[in-house]
């Protein structure tokens, strides 16, 4: 090798450069997400550990049971009946999507699409902000956008 003296430091410099983000964050952990837990309620549907780990699976089961099987009551491990509804049951206690759901979801960069349709507590008042007339004009001036 003729240019080892240049190539090897070059490779080292390159590796250091590529891993720069890693080194610059070394030892500094991003702060742990702190979702706001409702104060007036002591218990969730299931235990805290279970909810942390399995809430997405539980919600998927609920949605399947309600929409497809027309079953609306979930019996939890303590034998208590619970109305299976994200919008009307979960959010009854967890009164803020921003301070609860979003905190962890943003941390792990998860973007579930629940809230495209379900109405979060913050938006119960509605969205009809624009004047209908301007919307009509806007609508007729635009070609329909494609789906997703």
């Amino acid at each position, binding site marked *: 090798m003729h240019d080892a003296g240049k190539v090897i430091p070059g490779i080292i410099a390159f590796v250091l450069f590529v891993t720069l983000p890693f080194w610059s964050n070394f030892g500094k952990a991003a702060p742990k997400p702190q979702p706001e837990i409702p104060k007036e309620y002591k218990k969730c549907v299931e235990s805290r550990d279970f909810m942390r780990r399995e809430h997405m699976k539980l919600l998927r089961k609920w*949605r399947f049971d309600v*929409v*497809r099987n*027309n079953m*609306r009551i979930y019996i939890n491990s303590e034998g208590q009946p619970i109305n299976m509804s994200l*919008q*009307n049951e979960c959010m009854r206690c967890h009164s803020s999507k921003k301070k609860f759901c979003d905190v962890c979801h943003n941390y792990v960069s998860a973007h579930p*699409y629940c809230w*495209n*349709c*379900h*109405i979060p507590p913050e938006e*119960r*008042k*509605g*969205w*009809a*902000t*624009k004047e*209908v007339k301007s*919307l*009509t004009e806007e*609508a*007729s001036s635009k070609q*329909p*956008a494609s*789906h*997703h």
Partner: protein
Amino acid sequence: MVIDTRVCQKHAPCEDCIHACHHIHNVPQIPYKKHEIKWIWKDEFEHAFPDTAHEYANEVLKGREFLLLCNHCEHPPCVRVCPTQATFKREDGIVMMDMHRCIGCRFCMAACPYGSRSFNWRDPRPFIKDPNPEYPTRMKGVVEKCTFCTERLAQGKLPACAEACKYGAIVVGDLADPHSEINKILREHFTLRRKVHLGTGPSVFYII
């Protein structure tokens, strides 16, 4: 479901049923016709019953408006074509939609001979004036239609349109039960269904 169109005509232009349904289900009021979303609406005889209407039809029928909605067909073509089973038929006969699964392909809209389905060309939320916080909205890119108020039936309530009608023009009941009120009404009145010759078996009957 039986709709007594004589009652509707007597109280025209009452639209309480439409307002009730569209309010509680967060159906947007989009003024631009091509993007319109509707679960229940009105139309004239020749559009509702194109195979029965003819140019010599009597004056009474000409002036009358007919409430139109999903017929919850016995053999629903929308269910047959849906590639994701987002549209499916429940055991009790209600043709239901699982919005979580709808991919917006609109096969069902092509298959439904009654125009019962609407596509969300845009985010419906800005067009919902006074949302019902207990019911979801839909998102851009899915199809929607009347669900026969499954969420209300589960609570033992009547469909919102039937409950909203002050004049009792809409009656719902179990067609499979020969002793039900609805079967009694059907035995005693002359009724029409929309486009029966297509073989979909519509479950909405119109007293003429």
